[in-house]
């Protein structure tokens, strides 16, 4: 507006503009998304980024230090460490995302049922969660993973059994407090079926909290997957995985420290990205 007359124009920011502004005002969410986007992009583009195949062995060049040819050097079988690192991101992120689906749905649903119905449903579900909580997390994970067999399938089964508890606990508390609100009572007196109230009215109200927990729990789950790999009861060796990489690099830790440090850094990086998103989302919804 270059005209001399001051013009009063009230322009309403568009919806997209407003949401962009809001994300901009939350640096933790912004940075979490950027970090995670980079990680996912690298994982997806792994074949383009790295000229090497992750399980391609070269016995003539084992345990090489980082160079222009091998950016992070090679491991004890002469495999390119950088290629393994980014292919491992594929495996670990994929398993992390898939293993979280069932526990999330089951946990949120059971939490809502417990909180909404109270009484014996609540007692039963609380008993189950409290029993699981009484044991150390990794003890259960290792036992179940051991029983259900190593490999991807074992990881899915393990987290299907233990993963829902976090969600059930958080959502139960939330639902129990929402249940006391007048509008739930109103919906009940108006004759809506309970399942409808739970799915159509309770669910949207508890979902933001559950998603925040999802983000934090994904980081926990990633570390658990890596731990299982490190202990040798996770992903089986030829498939690249950060956990197995750390344990394979361990014998050479005093001279070739980067063999274990690189995958360790990758885990920390992914964990930070997910936690930042979780914190950011919590802030976003709290402000609203």
């Amino acid at each position, binding site marked *: 507006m270059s005209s001399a007359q001051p013009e009063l124009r009230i322009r309403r920011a568009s919806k997209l503009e407003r949401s962009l502004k809001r994300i901009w005002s939350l640096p933790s969410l912004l940075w979490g998304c950027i970090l995670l986007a980079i990680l996912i992009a690298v994982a997806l583009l792994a074949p383009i980024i790295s000229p090497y195949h992750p399980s391609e062995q070269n016995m003539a060049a084992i345990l090489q230090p980082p160079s222009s040819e091998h950016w992070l050097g090679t491991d004890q079988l002469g495999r390119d460490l950088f290629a393994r690192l980014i292919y491992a991101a594929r495996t670990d992120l994929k398993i992390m995302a898939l293993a979280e689906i069932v526990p999330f749905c089951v946990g949120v649903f059971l939490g809502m049922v417990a909180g909404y119905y109270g009484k014996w449903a609540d007692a039963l579900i609380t008993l189950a969660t409290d029993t699981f909580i009484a044991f150390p997390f990794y003890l259960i994970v290792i036992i179940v993973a051991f029983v259900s067999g190593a490999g991807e399938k074992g990881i899915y089964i393990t987290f299907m059994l233990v993963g829902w508890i976090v969600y059930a606990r958080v959502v139960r508390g939330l639902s129990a407090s929402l249940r006391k*609100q007048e*509008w739930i009572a*109103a919906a009940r*007196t108006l*004759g809506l079926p309970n399942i*409808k109230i739970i799915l159509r009215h309770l669910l949207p109200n508890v979902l933001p909290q559950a998603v925040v927990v999802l983000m934090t729990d994904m980081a926990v789950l990633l570390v658990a997957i890596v731990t299982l790999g490190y202990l040798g009861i996770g992903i089986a060796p030829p498939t690249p995985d950060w956990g197995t990489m750390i344990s394979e690099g361990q014998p050479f830790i005093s001279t070739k420290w980067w063999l274990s440090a690189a995958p360790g850094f990758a885990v920390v990086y992914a964990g930070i990205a997910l936690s930042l998103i979780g914190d950011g989302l919590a802030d976003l919804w709290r402000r609203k």
Partner: protein
Amino acid sequence: MKDRNPVVELDGLTLATRSRQPLVSGVSFRVEAGASLGLVGESGSGKSLTLRSIIGLLPSGVQRVGGQIRRSGSCAMIFQDPIRALDPLCPVVGQLAEVVYYRQRVSRKAARSIALELLEMLGLPDSLRTKDRYPHQLSGGQCQRIVIAMALACKPDLLLCDEPTTALDVTVQRQILDLIARLQKELGYAVVFVTHNLAVASSMCSELCVMKEGRIVEQGDTLQLLRDPQHSYTRMLMNSVLPLPELERRADP
């Protein structure tokens, strides 16, 4: 009037906490079809609990320990704070249509058009038809109209009103009361009206029950009760209604 069937009949209703502390004792009244009854009293006199026990909405920890509630026909309730009586994350028209869908057993599409008809009947703006509106975007009066519409979607024989105007702006109170009274004439439901405001109760109801500390202290025809209050508490309630000072002065000779 006496030969008509009662829509609701309370017989010696007694409510108490789990630790047997009495909250409401021996409350009896009957409401005939199309009639209106007011429960008046100060806060904590048990009038809301009495009302909620009719529709089975007692808060946890309160239970019925004696007496009977006989109810015939359907029943719906209007709440004190309309904004809190609506799901904050669901468009209001959607909520209304949902009630129509489940109570009138029509198709989803028909439910929506019935919902829109109800909106018109209650004098809600047309903008609700085209745009999804959430409870926080509406005024208290508009929300209360939605809540009334949801109650009417149940085709009630008995409408329970729990201080429906207390949380509203003074200017809207009258409109809401007129609306409830007008629709009562049109649709013929009976009303049980809980309020602490004697003026509101007497304009809405043909019969009044004055409650104090969980008991009915006086009960009877509104006009008779106001002309000739027997109980000191009723007189006290009547004296607590403030007259408009200007008019008062002019009335003096």
